[in-house]
């Protein structure tokens, strides 16, 4: 049994310290998800807190079929759907036809140092994406979920997820290139 499973089991028994350890482990990723979608930090914090409160209240329903983090992101995403009514509609409107050719491999780690400035530009570029693409990009590249996991979290068809991420990445690349060319 992994350390996380032990913590979940203890938390299910009412151990708040065990749940606090889980919160500690996942808080940054849940907050990033809400922070990238919502217009201000306070709202993002409130929604991230609400995610953990609901997780605690519904912990008995978590059976362990999926990963705990996937379950958490699903709660957070559903809260975002409630808060941003257009989000799910926009995601569902993504045409899955041009999703071929995407690899599900985790991006490889490069040792090459990249300037912090470029990372800041990428972060800014993500914030300019439509909400639906922002959600997909954060789940894929910050929270490092697989396409299948993203489909579970967002309750979308796999093809829609792949297409959405493909388009979001293309949009990001175009924006970064135009930013670098203009310098």
């Amino acid at each position: 049994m992994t350390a996380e499973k032990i913590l979940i089991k203890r938390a299910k028994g009412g151990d708040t310290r065990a749940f606090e350890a889980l919160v500690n482990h996942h808080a940054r990723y849940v907050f990033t998800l809400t922070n990238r979608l919502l217009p201000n930090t306070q709202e993002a914090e409130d929604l991230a807190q609400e995610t953990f409160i609901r997780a605690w209240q519904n912990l008995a329903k978590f059976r362990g079929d999926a990963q705990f983090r996937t379950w958490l992101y699903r709660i957070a995403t559903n809260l975002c759907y409630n808060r941003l009514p257009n989000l799910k509609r926009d995601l569902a409107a993504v045409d899955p036809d041009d999703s071929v050719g995407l690899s599900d491999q985790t991006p490889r780690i490069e040792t090459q140092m990249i300037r912090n400035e470029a990372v800041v530009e990428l972060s800014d570029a993500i914030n300019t994406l439509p909400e639906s693409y922002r959600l997909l990009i954060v789940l894929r590249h910050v929270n490092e979920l697989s396409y299948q996991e993203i489909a579970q979290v967002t309750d979308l068809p796999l093809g829609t997820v792949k297409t959405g991420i493909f388009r979001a990445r293309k949009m990001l690349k175009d924006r970064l290139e135009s930013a670098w060319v203009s310098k």
Partner: protein
Amino acid sequence: MSDFEMQHDYNDHNDDQLNQLFEQLGPDALPAGFIGRTMTSIRPTIEPEPFRIQWLDFVPAFVVAAMGALLLFIWLGAAGAHTSFEQSFNAWRLDQVLGSISDVQMVILCGAIGMLWVIMPYMRSGSKRRNVWFLSLVQ
């Protein structure tokens, strides 16, 4: 070039730089005190253990009552023999009881009873619950 080829070309060659940037990006920093505030919100949702009286809760009271009865018996005996109901009733009078023991004995006995009253609830080691009702009597 077809859409399929264009996408492959995009993935295989042009995404490396973007992937490297994503590797550097990482999650956002948490607001200060986020974990503490979250856990504060969670902890009050824990329902308190329902109040139940167990027979063990009455043990301290039984012990104190038994000691009191014993002491009273000794005091009554010291107050003198009594053969009638009236004599027995009179023997309960406080001035007679107090007159039969010294001040030092009185202080020691009251102190012992008081200490037992306070300590007994804590003698139930291993129980998460204290005899709250019992403590409230002495506080």
